[in-house]
């Protein structure tokens, strides 16, 4: 065991473990992407805010991965094809508008998912009850920036529109059924997500993108271990040091 085991409780198995990996990998990978902003943010307040969100997500990831196995083995020793995160969260940061569009799509989804899980009595309820408070802040952050960029300058509006369009094709995957999260009704989730998203975009003076929500092989692909090209490099960077010292403690 190379990492810190944060739980002594019995590990999840089967479909529930798969669901923990799916949710945990989403949080782990998005946290990593947001961590890439450190030292590059447009304004000092955003250095703090983006790091805050990244830290919340990393905390969620650590709990979820530890429900399945050793958190560090799972983060640093799995091959790219074994990660179960959505393709959306692995997309490169792009400009600030792309990062905000990714946050907007994902935080609204994650907030709905955790809200639902927190109301249930399944294995994720305790985690979700805590995480939903964090995702409420993440959603608010994304919403406020969407309003500022959408209703700011001509440039910010066109950048935000381009970012929303570019990432739109990765949103369909969020509403594919996930094994082990049987209590979640993907269709209802999608409806609530779309309604909330449309509300924000309306206020920002932005239109809901019109393109397809799934590419030729994007539907549910991340959850099945199919990722996009940039993900391989991201994982290589993330895992390099850990893998260079097999068995070492840090």
């Amino acid at each position, binding site marked *: 065991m*190379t*990492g*810190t085991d944060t739980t002594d409780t019995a590990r999840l198995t089967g479909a529930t473990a798969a669901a923990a990996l799916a949710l945990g990998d989403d949080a*782990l990978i998005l946290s*990593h992407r947001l*961590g*890439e902003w*450190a*030292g*590059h*943010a*447009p*304004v*000092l*307040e*955003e*250095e*703090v805010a983006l*790091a*805050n969100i*990244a*830290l919340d997500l*990393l*905390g969620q*990831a*650590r709990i979820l*991965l530890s429900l399945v196995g050793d*958190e*560090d083995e799972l*983060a*640093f020793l799995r091959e790219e094809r074994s990660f179960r995160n959505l393709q959306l969260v692995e997309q490169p940061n792009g*400009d*600030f508008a792309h990062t905000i569009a990714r946050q907007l799509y994902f935080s609204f989804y994650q907030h709905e998912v955790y809200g639902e899980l927190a109301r249930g009595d399944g294995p994720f309820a305790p985690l979700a009850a805590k995480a939903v408070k964090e995702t409420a802040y993440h959603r608010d952050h994304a919403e406020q920036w969407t*309003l*500022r*960029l959408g*209703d*700011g*300058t001509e*440039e*910010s509006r066109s*950048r935000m529109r381009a970012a929303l369009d570019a990432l739109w094709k990765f949103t369909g995957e969020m509403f594919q059924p996930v094994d082990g999260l049987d209590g979640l009704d993907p269709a209802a989730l999608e409806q609530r997500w779309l309604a909330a998203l449309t509300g924000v975009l309306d206020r920002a003076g932005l239109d809901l993108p019109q393109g397809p929500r799934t590419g030729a092989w994007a539907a549910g692909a991340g959850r099945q271990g199919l990722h996009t090209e940039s993900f391989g490099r*991201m994982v290589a*960077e*993330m895992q*390099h*040091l*850990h893998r260079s*010292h097999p*068995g*070492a*403690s*840090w």
Partner: protein
Amino acid sequence: MVAVTPETGPDTALGADGTDGTDMTADLGAQLAAAFDAAVAADERVEPRDWMPDEYRASLVRQMAQHAHSEIIGMQPEANWITRAPSLRRKAILMAKVQDEAGHGLYLYSAAETLGTSRDELLDKLHSGKQKYSSIFNYPTLTWADVGAIGWLVDGAAITNQVPICRCSYGPYARAMVRICKEESFHQRQGYELLLALSRGTEAQHAMAQDAVDRWWWPSLMMFGPPDDESAHSAQSMAWRIKRHSNDELRQRFVDIAVPQAESLGLTLPDPDLKWNEERGHHDFGAIDWAEFWDVLKGNGPCNEQRIGQRRKAHEEGAWVRDAAAAYARKQTAQQAAQQAANPAGQNEEARV
């Protein structure tokens, strides 16, 4: 330090130096200066609305700006390792640390604003090279162990420098420093603990830790600034109680603290002349390469261009974001004003007409 606030208050025509050119106010200026000196000597705190000499204000702005710039430039060498942190626990600690540094930058720029200098103005001076940041950040972080060495040595040196500033004569700076020092001492412990894990780890990890300490030791000693007899701002800063100990005193204090810590870590310090001097009650240490210090300060360090280049790039690439936020805020204000004008005191349109 309310005692030296001019009784005439902020609405009078007093210049920044407390004079308006007449004899009476020239006398007042001299009185204010004398009262200021006495209050500072009595360890009273100066607050933003108090009268203060222009040179005091300028000296504080210079020091606080340099400190704030060091926090935000200092994010870079450590952020360099966030995406490669070797365990999730270490990754969380490192992200939180870099975030703290951004937060320190925020407090310090805000504290400087109490002296009438905006953050934008100070950032422009950083980007144009008119103001400096701590030269230590012009050294590269080449391995993971550098993250630990920065925490232990660089943050350790910073704390030694900064703890006395918690008692600095200028209130907002002193108060900002109290919080900053608490967080810095946490960072230092984390850095020490990171190095300890490496030192007690595999042979390769131990070598990595030793190499990092070898590279960071001397630059850390340089962080206290030039020797006392060559320090340009020291004497006046000490008289004003902005600074309380000389560069050499603080450097000695740091060395005395670091030596036993290095022993506990199982690591050596790269100085053959380092030894306990019974007579002085301090460690003697070897000569610092001041030529290197001045060379790095002048811009010839390994990362000077890279650090300032990244800072400028982030600022320039973020301009459209800041413009958007400002435009949005203006629109919101205008909209609220229009709503109020159309509907004063909550009355409806018909009632108003």
